[in-house]
């Protein structure tokens, strides 16, 4: 159920508090709170204040440009979009199975980017809240404060991120916006020197990843009840899993479970995702609201990302991450762990898994293979889905007879969490802000709830043509001459 705090009655009579810009998140967003009598919170909304529109402007481009072109929508995890688009274009060129070298290089790239993205989020963006407290002085509650107080932790974060970026550079040519994946495969294998270069630092990174999980656990256990309850919402969760139910980031079937862990769907072929998922739009947000079709718009929203993935998978294929998963699962007492703050814990278990998976891959001679690409019969539709650092990422393209994109649909990871982020801030608003005189420290709790999801707001706003709009024509004297209103249905009315 969506919260009653989504839309207040008579909003014009309420006091408006705006948190803008949201800090220590990717992209630009704001939160609006409406306060009534006795400072009761009557409405809480997360707004994304930028618009990207990739779904529209890649129409008319050749499909083989997609993996490189579409990744430009993000600078933090462009590899996710690079690989999701590459998987979609694999389908288009009829490459039903990649060569071992191509798949393993892509996996290596993906683990590298997940490692660096998670390290960035935990160390740079969230560790100030977790180490110093949500109400720490604002001038100290940032990465500079971490560098001053705990230089070893800050250095670890910087170096882990650097290592992940180096994996991306070696596999795609550049640390940001490379060109490694192409339709049907990749454009280069690794040399012996490149493999040895990456092997040199993996043991250290694996060790740091273990330390990081222990650190987040220590912080979490110190105030266990508070962290379990803060911004908690009980939701369904969706993620990708392997055929054997194990944790998967690159390729597998989709699994969704309800808030009690009961199966909604499992191992579904992601190319049929439109049979299971729908999106709705709301007139106050540029970001769409996806939901599980079978459960309807009101009940069907869900969470994705580390919390969903670690909850949903049956096991990790790597031993250290699996041991951590078992401890994590014990928090839920047989049920899914619904704590929003547990996102941090799950994220670092994933980081550990990525480090283990990278270590395994770097021993695999297939990385140095020469068979890079496959192809088949050209198809007119391609769908690519991967687990990006922030959650399940969908790319769907249709091309015309000349190979030009005629339709594109993106469900970006953060979009999946749209309703959940809104509900989490409403929970925080209700629990900690209601009836209070608002201070920076209290408002930071709203941001802490959002940060737990690691949203990438710039990635998430692509729907065009569905947004409501009001166009006023005013003469030189300030008199309203004409007004057009565009509805979410696309209908345009003259309202003067």
């Amino acid at each position: 159920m969506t919260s009653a705090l989504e839309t207040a009655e008579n909003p014009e009579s309420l006091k408006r508090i705006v948190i803008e810009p949201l800090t220590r998140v990717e992209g630009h967003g704001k939160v609006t709170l409406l306060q009534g009598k006795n400072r009761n919170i009557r409405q809480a909304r997360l707004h994304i204040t930028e618009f990207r529109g990739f779904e529209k402007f890649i129409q008319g481009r050749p499909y083989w440009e997609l993996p490189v072109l579409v990744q430009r929508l993000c600078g933090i995890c462009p590899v996710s979009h690079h690989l999701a688009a590459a998987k979609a274009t694999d389908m288009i060129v009829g490459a039903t199975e990649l060569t071992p070298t191509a798949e393993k290089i892509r996996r290596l790239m993906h683990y590298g980017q997940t490692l660096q993205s998670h390290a960035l989020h935990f160390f740079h963006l969230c560790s100030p809240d977790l180490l110093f407290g949500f109400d720490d002085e604002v001038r100290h509650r940032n990465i500079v404060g971490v560098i001053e107080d705990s230089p070893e932790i800050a250095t670890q974060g910087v170096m882990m991120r650097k290592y992940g970026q180096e994996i991306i550079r070696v596999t795609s040519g550049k640390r940001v916006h490379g060109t490694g994946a192409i339709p049907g495969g990749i454009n280069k294998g690794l040399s012996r020197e490149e493999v040895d270069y990456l092997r040199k630092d993996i043991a250290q990174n694996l060790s740091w990843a273990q330390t990081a999980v222990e650190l987040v656990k220590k912080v979490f256990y110190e105030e266990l009840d508070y962290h379990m309850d803060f911004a908690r919402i009980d939701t369904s969760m969706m993620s990708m899993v392997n055929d054997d139910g194990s944790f998967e980031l690159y390729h597998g079937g989709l699994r969704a479970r309800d808030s009690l862990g009961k199966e909604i769907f499992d191992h579904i072929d992601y190319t049929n995702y439109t049979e299971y998922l729908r999106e709705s739009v709301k007139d106050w947000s540029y970001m769409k609201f996806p939901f599980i079709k079978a459960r309807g718009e009101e009940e069907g929203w869900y969470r994705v990302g580390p919390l969903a993935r670690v909850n949903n998978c049956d096991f990790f294929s790597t031993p250290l991450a699996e041991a951590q998963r078992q401890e994590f699962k014990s928090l839920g007492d047989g049920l899914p762990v619904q704590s929003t703050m547990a996102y941090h814990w799950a994220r670092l278990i994933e980081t550990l898994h990525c480090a283990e998976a990278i270590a395994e891959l770097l021993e695999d001679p297939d990385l140095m293979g020469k068979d890079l690409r496959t192809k088949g019969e050209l198809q007119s539709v391609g769908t690519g889905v991967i687990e990006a650092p922030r959650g399940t990422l969908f790319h769907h393209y249709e091309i015309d007879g000349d190979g030009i994109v005629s339709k594109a649909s993106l469900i970006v990871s953060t979009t999946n969490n749209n309703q959940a982020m809104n509900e989490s801030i409403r929970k925080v608003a209700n629990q900690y802000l209601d009836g209070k005189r608002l201070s920076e420290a209290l408002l930071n709790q709203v941001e802490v709830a959002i940060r737990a999801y690691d949203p990438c707001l710039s990635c998430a706003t692509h729907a065009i043509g569905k947004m409501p709009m009001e166009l006023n024509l005013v003469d030189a004297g300030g008199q309203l001459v004409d007004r057009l209103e565009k509805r979410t249905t696309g209908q345009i009315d003259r309202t003067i």
Partner: protein
Amino acid sequence: MNTENTFRLDGKDIPFKKGDTIMDAALRAGEYIPHLCHNPEFKPHGSCRLCVVDVNGRHQASCTLPAEAGMEVDNSSDAIRQRRELLLQMLFVEGNHTCPACEKSGACQLQAVAYYIGMLSPHLTHFFPKRSIDASHPDIVFYHNRCILCGLCVRASEQVDRKSVFAISGRGIDSKLVFNSPDGKLGGSELEFTDKAVEVCPVGAIMPKHLGYETPVGQRLYDTKPISVVGDVAAHSKPEKPFISDKSHE
């Protein structure tokens, strides 16, 4: 040095043969003069104006000006460099040259010349013209956005391929490349992917279809050495066999 058969380029004596242009002699002597529309295999065009040098105080296109004994040629002064940069600035904003996502990036002569001249970003107001992509050909795609109207494909198609597939139509800012086919689309023309006209494009306007970003970053034509050392795109290009043909899509 026999001054009857040499001219001076930036203080160096450059020998020339009868019929040489300044460009011909300079390139043979290993002296790079920036250019886009010049290709030694074809008649000079003199249209891009990047190769303009100062000859005895006058600005002249080096690709069309016959070499003469005793000429004093300035190819590297600040004034010449600034003139070339302005021309490049205009070329970049007149079309839609989005290097960061273009599959020709790293192997594009326009980009390489810009780096050579020292132009690192556009400073003029972009025109953002609305130009189409012609993907009607089964093996080749034409990007009007990237075409700089150098005329090399026109000359190659006419002089080598003997097909006259391409022509420049219109005047001034309305000039555009057109195709000799019944419906005006590339797919209806006689162009084949092995044609010389496909090889000579210095930018990403004429590209093989279904292919892009094949060469890894770091191994592209101009990734490690400047164009003054590497030379033109056309000197290195070879026909690529189609990865997939549209025919399989029909």
